[in-house]
C-alpha cells in the first residue's frame, strides 16, 4: 500500500527527511493517462526515481482524458492535505493550478512545461522544445543530404508527423523547419497530422505515404502513440526517423537515429531533490533549454554507432552555437 501510509518510519539516507523528520509524501497528478511513452511517462520516471533514490513516498493519480475532471481531481489532492508536494504539468493545467494554488496556499506544487510565476507555492519549469526541435530539424537535414547513410536519397525532403494540428505541435514543427533550413535552405518539410495521438495504423499510413511517394528519407515523430507507426514505417522501408520526448532510439536501432528528448524526468527528479533539501525556489520559473539539459537529442551508444562521425560533429557544432546564443530559435507559442 502506498499513498495512504501515514506511518512515519524515518528512512536512513536523511535526504528524504526534512525538518520534522517525516517521510515526504509526493503525488504526481497526470492530466490524462499514462502510457504516452513520452511526456507523462517521462515525468512519471522522474517521480519514481525520486521515490527510489530519495526515499519519498510517491503516488501517481491519473486524471483521465476528460478535461472537466482535472480541476476536481487536482483539488481533491490539494484538499486532502496528505501530500507535501504535488507534481503536475502541461499548459492545459495552468488555469487550474493557478486557481487551486491560490486557494490552498499551504500546498506546494512543482509544475513542468509551462511558466507559472507570482504564486509563492508553485515552482515551475519550462523546456525549449523549439530548440530541441531545431536540433532535430538540423539533424534531419544532415541525414537527407547525407551520402554516407544508405537509406538517404538525394532529394532534399524531410517529414514531420504531428498528432494534431495544434499550437504545441506546430511549435515543434516551426523549430524543426528552422533547423532544417539552417543547414540547407533548399530543404522541404512534408508535414501531416494524424488527428489524434492513438491511431498508430493511420500514423504508419501517413508515414509510408511520405516515405514512398514524397521521397522523404527521415521523418520526425511528434504524435505520441500514433507516431510509433511512423517509426515502424521508417524501419520497414530502411529509412530513418527521429523519436520524441523520451529516448526512442532503441525501438528500431539504426532506423530511429536519434530522439528529441525533453528531460522532464531529470528535471522533475532534480526539483524533488531540491525540495527534499528545502532548496527549491518556489514562486519562480526556470527555463530549461539545450544549455540547461532540459531538451536535446538523445546521444546514446546507438546514436554513436549509427550516426556518421562527421554528422555527430556538425550536430555538436550547432548545439554549441545554440548554447552561445548565436542562433535564435523562433517559437510560435509566445
Amino acid at each position, binding site marked *: *500500500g*502506498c*499513498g*495512504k501510509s501515514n506511518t512515519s518510519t524515518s528512512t536512513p539516507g536523511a535526504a528524504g527527511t526534512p525538518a520534522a523528520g517525516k517521510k515526504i509524501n509526493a503525488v504526481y497528478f497526470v492530466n490524462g*493517462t499514462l502510457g504516452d511513452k513520452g511526456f507523462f511517462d517521462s515525468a512519471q520516471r522522474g517521480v519514481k526515481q525520486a521515490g527510489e533514490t530519495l526515499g519519498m513516498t510517491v503516488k501517481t*493519480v*491519473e486524471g*483521465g*482524458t*476528460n*478535461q*472537466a*475532471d482535472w*480541476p*476536481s*481531481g487536482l*483539488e*481533491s*489532492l490539494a*484538499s*486532502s492535505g496528505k501530500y507535501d508536494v504535488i507534481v503536475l504539468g*502541461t*499548459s*492545459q493545467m*495552468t*488555469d487550474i493550478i493557478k486557481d487551486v494554488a491560490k486557494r490552498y496556499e499551504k500546498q506546494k506544487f512543482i509544475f513542468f512545461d*509551462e511558466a507559472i510565476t507570482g504564486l509563492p507555492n508553485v515552482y515551475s519549469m519550462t523546456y525549449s522544445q523549439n530548440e530541441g526541435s531545431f536540433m532535430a530539424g538540423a539533424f534531419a537535414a544532415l541525414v537527407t543530404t547525407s551520402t554516407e547513410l544508405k537509406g538517404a536519397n538525394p532529394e532534399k525532403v524531410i517529414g514531420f508527423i504531428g498528432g*494534431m*494540428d*495544434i*499550437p*504545441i*505541435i506546430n*511549435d515543434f514543427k516551426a523549430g524543426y523547419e528552422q533547423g532544417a533550413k539552417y543547414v540547407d535552405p533548399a530543404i522541404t518539410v512534408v508535414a501531416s497530422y494524424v*488527428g489524434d495521438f492513438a491511431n498508430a495504423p493511420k500514423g504508419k499510413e501517413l508515414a509510408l505515404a511520405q516515405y514512398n511517394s514524397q521521397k522523404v528519407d527521415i521523418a520526425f515523430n511528434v504524435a505520441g502513440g500514433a507516431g510509433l507507426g511512423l517509426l515502424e514505417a521508417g524501419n520497414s522501408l530502411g529509412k530513418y526517423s527521429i523519436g520524441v520526448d523520451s529516448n526512442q532510439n532503441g525501438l528500431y536501432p539504426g532506423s530511429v537515429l536519434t530522439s528529441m528528448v525533453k528531460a522532464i524526468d531529470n528535471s522533475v527528479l532534480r526539483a524533488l531533490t531540491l525540495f527534499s533539501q528545502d532548496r527549491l525556489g518556489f514562486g519562480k520559473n526556470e527555463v530549461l533549454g539545450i544549455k540547461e539539459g532540459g531538451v536535446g537529442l538523445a546521444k546514446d551508444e546507438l546514436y554513436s554507432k549509427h550516426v556518421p562521425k562527421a554528422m555527430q560533429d556538425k550536430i555538436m557544432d550547432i548545439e554549441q552555437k545554440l548554447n552561445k546564443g548565436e542562433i535564435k530559435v523562433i517559437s510560435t*507559442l*509566445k
Partner: protein
Amino acid sequence: MNTRQAIYLEITGIIAAAIMAILCGFIVILFSSQNPIEAISSFLGGPLSGAFNIGTILNKAVPLILTGLALSVVFQSGVFSMGAEGQLYVGAFVGSLVAVYVHGLPAWILLPLVLISAMAGGALYGAIPGWLKTKWNANEIVTTLMMNFVAILTTSYLVNNVFKDSASGGFARMHYVDPAAKLGKIFTGFPAHYGVVVALLAAVVVYLFMYKTRSGYELRLVGKNSRFADYGGISTKRVVIVSVMISGALAGLAGIVEILGVHGTYKDNFSSGLGFDGIIIALLARNHPIGVVAVSLFYAYLQVGAASMQVGSDMPRELAIIIQVMLVLFVSSQAIFAYLKQKFVLRQKAVN
C-alpha cells in the same frame, strides 16, 4: 399491482442489481488488490465523504443530465441520433463566442443570451441530420456519427487558428468568458456550480414538455407509432425536425454549461465523449426525464467513486472503470426486474 408497488419493485430491482455488480467488482478487486476492503470502501464511500466530493458528483452530473435529456427527447420521437457530441461542440462554441466577445451587458441579459445562442447553435447543427432524414430518409445513425467528427474537427480548426487566445500556449482555448457570463459556485466552499440549477430546470422543462404539452404528446406519439401519428393528422416530419432540434439545443446547453461552469472558456477538445455518455444515460433512464436525473447522479457517483478508489487505494484507474461497466450492465438488466415482478405476482396469487 399498483404504481406504488411498481416503484417499490423497481427500487428493489436496482438495489439487487447494484449488489450483484458490486459482488462481481469485489471478486475482481479480491484478485488484484492488497487491501480489497479499503478499495471497495473508497469506491463506494469515497464519493459521499465530504462536501467536496458530493459537489463534484453534482458537477459531473450536470452535463450528463443535459446530454441525457437531449437524447431522451430524440429517442422518444423514434430517431436514433448519436449526434449529441457534435452538437455539444457546436453549441458550446457558438455560445462561447458570445460569452467571450460580447461585453458590457449585465449578467441577467448576457447569461441568457449566451445560453440561448449555444442552444441555437446545437439546434441548427442537429437540424441537419433531421432534415436529411425527413427529406431523403438518410439513416440518422450514420449522419450523426459522421457529423460528430466534422463538428469536432471544424471547431478545433477555428479555436486553433481563428479564435485562439494568444496567451493560451500549446493547447488552444479562446479568451476567458466575460465574468458576467460565468456560472459561479452556489455556495462558497462547495464546488457545485449553478449549472446544477440549469440542469434541474432543464429536466423539469423537458418533463413538462414531453408529458404535459400538445407538442410533447405529438412527439411521443410519432416515436411510438408514426403511422398512427400520420393517421391522426400529425406532421411526422415536422415533429422529427423539432425533436432533433430540441435535442441539439439541449446538447448545446450541456456544452456551454460545462464551459461556463467548469472551464471558464472554450477549450479545444474539451468534451471527451459526454455526448456518448448521454446515450447510455437516456437508455438506462428509459428516456424519462426524471430517470435521466437519477441515472446521471448514479453515473457521476460511479465516476467519482472510480477516481476516489484510484486515489485511496492501490487499484488502477482501469479496474475502476471495469467495475463501473459491471454496475451499468447489471442495473440495466431487465431480466432482474422481470424476475422480481413475476415473483411478486406469484406471491400475490398465493395470497389470493
